[in-house]
């Protein structure tokens, strides 16, 4: 059998297209080991629940969805579990290069690295590729692939309207990391203890590195603050009590971190684990990734004008959109916030250019 499509895709990921010749699958003589269990994600069950509950307070659900529905905890789990998969090329790193090692082992029937036999069954087979993929995909990519996610179609060049032709979701790929990028992300996720390369960089310290430690410590602190303030576990508190715990002074820096990751999980591409089904984007009326369709669909030579998406045009407001303005509380906030800025003005007669009145 030939793993043409899969191989090609993975080889491209490593920037090594064509580096390995395509050869038939062969089996190696097996040592008959038991299949190993898949590697676990970073957050354990209790920690995951805490993250889920705390992020639900940061970006709450009411009549509209929030962090809970968007799966923000899954985003955070995916980020903290970056690079935990089988090290199939024994280079000390986990990433798309490991796919290459597995493919090479399948193709040639040999490998310099025992871990290329990902499922530990004593053979280099497609099952190893599947295992590597499952194992890797407990983590999310540092950099998703591209260029298109498949959420939008190609334009029909004849009609200049959306076609039924959708690209595949390349955001599910892992874009390659080079050596120094791997070092940076290793530092971010797991700290610099084993990275002398970063010892001359004062920025590779503190809250910029070792997210796993910050989460372990921060989640422990949430629990202990709950006990201190209410004598109960965080999970047993009412939403208002949970908010009070998160607003307590000792949690200030961890909640800052958690809030940044919460909004990343709300509004990043769903392939990173959060923003489930684009729920965060829908909530705020945000288009998300629009390629390959985009908002300008082409130039019509007959009418000598650009054709735009009718529901979300590029050069004018949405159909039916009004000169509605901001909500009163936000206007009040802006007056306080902006009033101290240079050249601040609230204009007497605001108007909405191009919006039918």
């Amino acid at each position, binding site marked *: 059998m030939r793993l043409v499509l899969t191989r090609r895709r993975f080889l491209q990921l*490593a920037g090594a297209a064509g580096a390995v010749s395509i050869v038939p699958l062969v089996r190696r003589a097996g040592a008959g080991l038991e299949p190993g269990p898949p590697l676990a994600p970073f957050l354990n069950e209790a920690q995951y629940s805490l993250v889920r509950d705390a992020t639900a307070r940061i970006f709450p659900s009411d009549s509209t969805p929030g962090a809970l529905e968007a799966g923000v905890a899954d985003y955070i789990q995916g980020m903290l579990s970056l690079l935990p998969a089988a090290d199939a090329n024994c280079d000390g790193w986990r990433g798309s290069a490991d796919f290459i090692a597995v493919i090479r082992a399948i193709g040639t029937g040999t490998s310099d690295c025992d871990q290329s036999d990902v499922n530990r069954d004593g053979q280099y087979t497609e099952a190893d590729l599947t295992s590597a993929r499952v194992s890797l995909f407990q983590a999310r990519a540092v950099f998703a692939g591209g*260029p298109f996610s498949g959420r939008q179609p190609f334009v029909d060049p004849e009609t200049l309207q959306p076609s039924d032709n959708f690209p595949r979701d390349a955001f599910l790929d892992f874009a390659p990391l080079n050596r120094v990028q791997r070092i*940076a992300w290793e530092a971010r996720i797991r700290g610099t203890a084993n990275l002398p390369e*970063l010892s001359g960089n004062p920025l590779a310290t503190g809250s910029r590195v070792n997210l796993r430690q910050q989460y372990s410590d921060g989640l422990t602190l949430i629990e202990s603050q709950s006990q201190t303030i209410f004598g109960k576990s965080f999970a047993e508190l009412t939403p208002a009590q949970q908010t009070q715990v998160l607003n307590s002074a000792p949690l200030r820096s961890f909640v800052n971190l958690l809030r940044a990751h919460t909004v990343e999980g709300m509004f990043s591409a769903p392939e990173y684990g959060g923003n489930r089904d684009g729920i965060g984007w829908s909530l705020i009326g945000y288009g998300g990734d629009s390629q390959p369709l985009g908002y300008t669909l082409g*130039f019509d030579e007959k009418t000598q004008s650009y054709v735009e998406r009718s529901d979300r045009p590029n050069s004018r407001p949405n159909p039916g959109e009004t000169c509605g303005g901001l909500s009163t509380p936000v206007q009040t*906030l802006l007056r306080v916030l902006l009033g101290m800025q240079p050249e601040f003005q609230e204009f007497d007669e605001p*108007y909405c250019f191009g919006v039918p009145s």
Partner: protein
Amino acid sequence: MSLPSAVPGVLGETSLDDFDVVIIGSGPGGCAAAHILTQANLSVLVLEAGNNYFLGLDDPAPGKPTPLFGSDELKQSARFFGKQDPLIEPRTYRENAAVPGLANGDVNTLGRTVGGAWIHADVKVPRFNEVDFRMASALHDAGRVYDGANFADWPLTYAELEPWYSMAEQLSGVSGTTTGEGADPFASPRSGPYPMPPNNRMYADLVLSEGSRLAGYHPIVYPAAVNSRPYDGRPACVSCGLCSGYGCPNNSKGSGAVTMLRKALLTGRCQVRYNCFVTRLVHSGRTVTGVEYIDDRSDRLTVGGDRFILAASPIEDARLCFLSDPGGAGLGNSSGLVGRNLMFHLQTIAVGIFKQRMHGERGQSVTGGMVDFRGVEPGGMALAKDGRPLGGIIEFGTNSEAIDEAKQYGRQEITSIAGQLGLGLKQLMLDSPLRDHLAVMIMQAEDAPQLGNRVDLDPSVTDVYGVPVPRVTHVSHAFELQASQYYQPRMVEVIGKAGAQFGFVNPDLDKLGTRHVMGTLRMGTDPSASVCNAAGKFHDLDNLYCGDGAVFPTASGYNPTLTIIALALRMADAIGG
């Protein structure tokens, strides 16, 4: 010839191992030089520190390359995809040379990827004016004196550069207009029209253009290397929205990688080695003999060549000159000017918050602007006779990023009112005052050159390669600070005329995040007052050239990239001819 390359880390013809020219850096200048040199039948090696995200950039098949970029805010904005990561390569910064530099993750860092910084720009490409090439004389003649500023005339004129501007526009695929609505009355004479008509303009641009018109100014179509039609084998832009700061998902952005570098690679006379960080130039007397670099396996390698071009950006170019002469004054530094006269633009940002939604996630980030505040006469041949300050071109923009917006709501002055968590944050995201209701004017004011604004090596901070990082010393001059002050109320007036409810000026005048970096290897005719000559060659060396914005004697008030490309084309033509 065997393309595409099958060797990891290498694009182009892998059998090449003896190079006529070695180029350090694959940004717009390096791409332009590679194109011209390969056209002249020279063999070229391009060394790039960053990764490659163009699959098949060296594959002759139509439709290539496949970019790994996408409209992905997390990857491209929050996680440094193709950009300089501060954990890998920090810099240090100080305003005052008497204090140590402080480690800073973003002192105008540029791209770390094949294609360089222009991959992530929204590729706005105005030309400089005629008067920009003789700014010292023009200021002198007008009796305008600025103590401490170090203005100089360029060793070439606008007229000499004009043909190269035209070629740069043709190669990059620039859309714009020279006639009718949106034409720039302050632009200097051109030998021909833009290669393409204007792209579809975005709503926020049209809103601010209306304000500009009502205030008595002249809104323009911003020239950009963005395909408004299919051009040179690349498709038209679809206004996908995440443009400034993003690689282009469909190659309609005419960044150097998909235009000039691809052409160079397909000749079979060009090789790109990426993930290769150059640590020094090896030299003897007036000759550079080789380049040392560290590859992705951490191996230290040396490659030789007949001629060498520094095109790694002004800060990195100057750093390499110092790294190449440990204990000495710096390679090519008999003038003492290497690293000096570093210039950014001073950005003044006027913000409007509007009742209607701007939908900033649509459109190419900036499609319009105005030049009335550059401070020159129509035609760009003289300073404004009314004596108004020299500001810069203004971009009409919006905010396209939702994650960035949400993080802004975490700023303490906002959380102190809205709370740091809960429905306050959610209401702000639903209302979206700082993204969907926001439109901005960004002025790129000219930054006066100063001897004390400079790059040298930091004595204590090293990067992931163990190499001393660049230390940037830069303080703004009254020249640009006064221009900013003068134009601020006028910018807010335009915002008001455009219909905004609120208008103000961002109190932080930005200079470290402008991505416009110039100077450090100033060009000139006098070897004691400049580092490079008019052809971009180092005065002190027979075979070392500079191919990027480091050679600019002054910064002008326009986005620098088209001028970088034009100069690099001209320089390479002189080498190849």
